[in-house]
């Protein structure tokens, strides 16, 4: 290792050490700014996941059960939308919410609501596509029994959503993972305004650009721990297969 490389390595190690120390200190002291940023991150992402589930779960279940002309094309589109580039979504939402846009009169740009809208658009296709696959597999197993019982399509959809709930929790978690880690769209429509729309990812991007790597790393570590905690909580909430 050259002396230059060694100096870089030592600096990185020092950054990590500082980051851990800073992260620990911020959490222990319940730093007001940190709490605000983390709270907003969770609030925006959880609301977005909730709305995306309200849209995506019934839609996924309906797509799993229904057979109609053009269904294959719809599935291709839904699956493709899972890979929506966040910055493109951010830009489209920005254009709609900006003063001259069709929804400009609502004054939503650079508010948490705008961030929720952008995240919902990003994760609703993920929830829809993944739940469609899970429900379709379950429907294959139940289809004859349900038809034998004379269930309507609506009854079938409700029963499949209920019985697929364990796997669907994982789908919601996948959506949450995408939402909480998202930066491109929320920075465009939220603006990363301190005390208003600053969330963990946008704060990390800002601190990194300012060169404050320890703080950026500290926020990154907290983000990772939060993601782990939410997953662990969801695991404990999942009842055994009944």
């Amino acid at each position, binding site marked *: 290792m050259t002396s230059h490389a060694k100096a870089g390595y030592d600096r990185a190690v020092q950054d990590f050490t500082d980051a851990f120390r800073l992260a620990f200190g911020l959490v222990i002291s319940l730093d007001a700014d940190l709490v605000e940023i983390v709270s907003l991150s969770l609030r925006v992402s959880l609301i977005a996941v909730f709305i995306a589930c309200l849209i995506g779960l019934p839609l996924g279940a309906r797509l799993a059960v229904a057979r109609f002309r053009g269904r294959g094309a719809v599935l291709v589109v839904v699956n493709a939308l899972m890979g929506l580039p966040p910055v493109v979504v951010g830009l489209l939402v920005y254009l709609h919410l900006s003063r001259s846009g069709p929804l400009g009169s609502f004054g939503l740009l650079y508010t948490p609501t705008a961030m929720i809208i952008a995240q919902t658009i990003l994760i609703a296709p993920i929830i829809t596509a993944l739940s469609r696959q899970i429900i379709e597999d379950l429907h294959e*197993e139940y289809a*004859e029994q349900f*038809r*034998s*019982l004379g269930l309507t399509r609506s*009854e079938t959809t409700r*029963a499949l959503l209920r019985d*697929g709930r*364990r796997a669907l929790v994982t789908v919601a978690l996948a959506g949450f993972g995408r939402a909480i880690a998202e930066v491109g769209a929320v920075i465009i429509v939220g603006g990363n305004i301190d005390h208003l729309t600053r969330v963990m990812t946008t704060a990390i991007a800002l601190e990194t650009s300012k060169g404050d790597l320890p703080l950026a790393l500290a926020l990154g570590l907290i983000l990772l721990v939060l993601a782990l905690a939410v997953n662990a909580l969801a695991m404990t909430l999942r009842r055994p297969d*009944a």
Partner: protein
Amino acid sequence: MSAGVTTHGLAFDAGGNRRVGPLDLDLPATGITVLMGPNGAGKSLLLRLLHGLITPTAGQIKISTDRQAMVFQKPVMLRRSVAENLIFVLKRRHPRAEVEGRCRNILREIDLEARAGQPARALSGGEQQRLALARALATEPELLFLDEPTASLDPASTLAIEATVMRAAAEGTKVVLVTHDTGQARRVAGDVVFLHKGMVCEHSLAADFFDSPVSEQARAYLDGRIVL
């Protein structure tokens, strides 16, 4: 309560091949009709056609009731508790206030009351099939289709299923049962339809069928010889 089943020219094709038919059947409106025949004869397919799970390629099916139920060879258990598997169908037919009591009565009848809260999928094969049969009967069907319901069950479980089926038939439910078990057919059948390669070889009263089968295929089947 009775449910006659008749078919005219009933046929089903798959992959360009005739799988069943053309069949002209006239099943008695009461009692237990047993469908027998070697593997691939089209018994399960015929059952699904009669129950409306598959659309026939040709012909007509006339059944005098819509109140039908079916129990499958591999019982389909919802990912719910034993009681909830019953409640699922009971609440579609009965007022909410009655559902719990009815559920408890049924579970007592099938000796699963102690396991009401357990996941249905944790039951043994015999218990699952008892529950599946009870769930089907909870819909109060006038016509009950059974597709080899005891195929993988031990003798005690088989007899328990047979007793329930015979009780339902005695109370007026028309039963159409597919089985490979000749002993079971002898115990429960009122009449037997023997199928071979998708066609009816003979349809006769059970006593006549077992004492003096008319077709060579049925004789070979009952003798335990290979039917080709």
